[in-house]
């Protein structure tokens, strides 16, 4: 592989990411198949800092006894996702990319104060019924060993004849037997609060006007917040050793709003869950959490 490894140090500033995002709003019309960005963006040592985890935990509802949240390294790597999507060579505008699905695997316990080497790269194009999707890989290493990995699926709607093999099958969940176990009231400023810890200042999450520019009536909750909140509700105390979560982002959650967590009593290592609207008939998020199961 002719990977171009680019060390990112220090991390990009918020201003820089915003400017790149604005610059990437317009892209020249594609001529032929899109080219996969080849860069591998690397942050050699990112600390799982106590303050960072605490701030993220407050935003999503994690408690200290739950250890490092399963989703937390994603937040640390997210600025690199944005850098990849806003590169001049990337064929589509970054702000129009819809986060469709995410898969996270943790291979060993993460500790506060631990330093991770984070690598982010475009893994492959994915053909999707609604357009061209792209899988971005996030890999976290500690002392040379892969400790955590994430795969994020982003979609550019309306691209005809998308290329690449399709994504995994849709999650098979026993949706009919899930019961409502929690209710969350989401405040209007949820997007702004989460932006401060995630670094994702995408206007569709942080302001009504911004959301309207992209066709939403109100600001919408960040998908990774919803996933984080769902895990905060389900991660056991004591922290995780090995774990996996797969999720699909469905209908956006308009802010302010009220949603509910639906799941089944934990019976075994796997736990299916959905975040649904107030009436309980439409899913915003579908997921499957597996804890301490032998992962391939």
């Amino acid at each position, binding site marked *: 592989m002719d990977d171009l490894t680019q060390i990112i140090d220090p991390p990009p500033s918020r201003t820089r990411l915003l400017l790149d995002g604005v610059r990437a709003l317009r892209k020249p019309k594609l001529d032929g198949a899109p080219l996969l960005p080849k860069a591998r963006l690397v942050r050699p040592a990112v600390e799982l800092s106590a303050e960072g985890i605490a701030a993220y935990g407050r935003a999503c509802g994690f408690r200290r006894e739950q250890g490092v949240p399963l989703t937390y390294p994603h937040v640390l790597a997210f600025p690199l996702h944005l850098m990849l999507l806003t590169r001049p060579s990337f064929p589509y505008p970054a702000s129009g990319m819809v986060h469709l699905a995410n898969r996270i695997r943790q291979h060993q316990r993460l500790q506060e104060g631990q330093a991770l080497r984070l690598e982010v790269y475009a893994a492959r194009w994915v053909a999707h019924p609604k357009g061209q999707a792209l899988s971005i890989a996030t890999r976290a290493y500690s002392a040379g060993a892969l400790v955590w990995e994430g795969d994020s699926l982003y979609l550019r709607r309306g691209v005809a004849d998308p290329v690449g093999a399709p994504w995994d099958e849709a999650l098979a969940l026993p949706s009919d037997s899930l*019961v*409502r*176990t929690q*209710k969350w*009231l989401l405040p209007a400023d949820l997007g702004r609060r989460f932006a401060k810890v995630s670094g994702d200042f995408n206007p569709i999450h942080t302001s009504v006007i911004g959301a309207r520019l992209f066709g939403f009536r109100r600001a919408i909750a960040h998908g990774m917040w919803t996933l984080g909140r769902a895990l905060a509700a389900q991660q056991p105390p004591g922290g995780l050793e090995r774990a996996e979560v797969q999720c699909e982002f469905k209908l956006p959650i308009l802010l302010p709003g009220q949603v509910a967590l639906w*799941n*089944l*009593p*934990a019976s075994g290592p796997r736990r299916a869950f959905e975040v649904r609207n107030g009436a309980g008939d439409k899913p915003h998020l579908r997921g499957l959490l597996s804890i301490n199961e032998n992962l391939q």
Partner: protein
Amino acid sequence: MSHYSFNPAPTRRVAIIGGNRIPFARSNTVYAHDSNQDLLVAALQGLVDRYNLHGQRLGEFAAGAVIKHSRDFNLARESLLSTTLSPETPAYDVQQACGTGLEAALLVANKIALGQIEVGVAGGADTTSDAPIGINESLRHTLLAANRAKGLGDKLKALLKVRPSMFFKPLLPRNGEPRTGLSMGEHCEEMAKRWQIKRLAQDELTLTSHQRLAAAYQRGFFDDLISPHRGLARDNNLRADASLEKLAGLSPAYDRQSGTLTAGNSTPLTDGASVVLLASEAWAAEHGWPVLAYLRTGETAAVNFVDGSEGLLMAPAYAVPRMLQREGLSFADFDFFEIHEAFAAQVLCTLKAWEDPVYCRERLGLAAPLGAIERAKMNVNGGSLGCGHPFAATGGRQLAALAKAIHERGGGRGLISICAAGGLGITAIVEK
């Protein structure tokens, strides 16, 4: 070899001498301007007056409130100091959600049983009218930061972070489980669905509760159990004219589409207080008071409602069989059942669970179901649906009423069962 010093005398029977409560009032009505302390003082002073305890130093006073101001850190002691009991009577606060009153009674009873004290009072009060409103969390953090800052300059700098909007978004007390965000009614609605409890059955139970409470007032049952307060002589939630038609006309309160819980078959927010006088038999004899009944034992259970494996209010279903097994008793040995009616549906779920062979085997580990409770023996003088439910005051109300019912009957045995927030269940056996 060291000598183990906790060496109690042989345990003694714990006598229930009597109880006192003020009439319960729906939230924001007659007691709108009373604090928890005002209510508790009224109930305790009533007891002191009735049993002529003026100036007496008792073993202890244990009481609590569920919805509590931070200033009420010593609610029981402060209340005691406002009565004519000897100020040398020690006191402490207890808080176990809606089990507060009964748990306080068990604590006092255990000390009497072990010979540590001769006499004590247990109780509880709650007001949702005079509820604490916290200041906005951001404002609180800002003020705390200013308080920590050294020097005027740093203090002012910290205070500069105060925003006007902070003053308009106070922290209100929530009627919801902290870990689930669901209100108790929503939790109970889930239970009703799981156990397929019909609306009509809930309304019928509610009607019975009101009718039996009205009848108990009618025959003067509460004359020596209640002291009037603020001009109120009986519980103002009581609807003597309640009917199934009126109850059927109410719309669902927690699930407008397919719910069965209504404002009628759920207890309303209520203000009130109750206390119970417990003593050794020797103390009772010395002071010439008849023993209404004895508090035999108690059992507390908790369930995992957080991950949905059990209903929030199902813990009594577990506590009761454990207690019966320990004491070698079955439902057939009981003459009275005082089941706290937080919601008619919650009572019916528990009763159904005890009759269900699969549930009793798989959840409760019983070879055979506990069986049915004869309705004629359950809440014979009305329940929480009729009189209301000031959280911490319910246990004392039930304990005193049950002891008196046993005394009136000339003996017998009764079971008390209370479900509480946090998946807790508190139960006890009273007998004579």
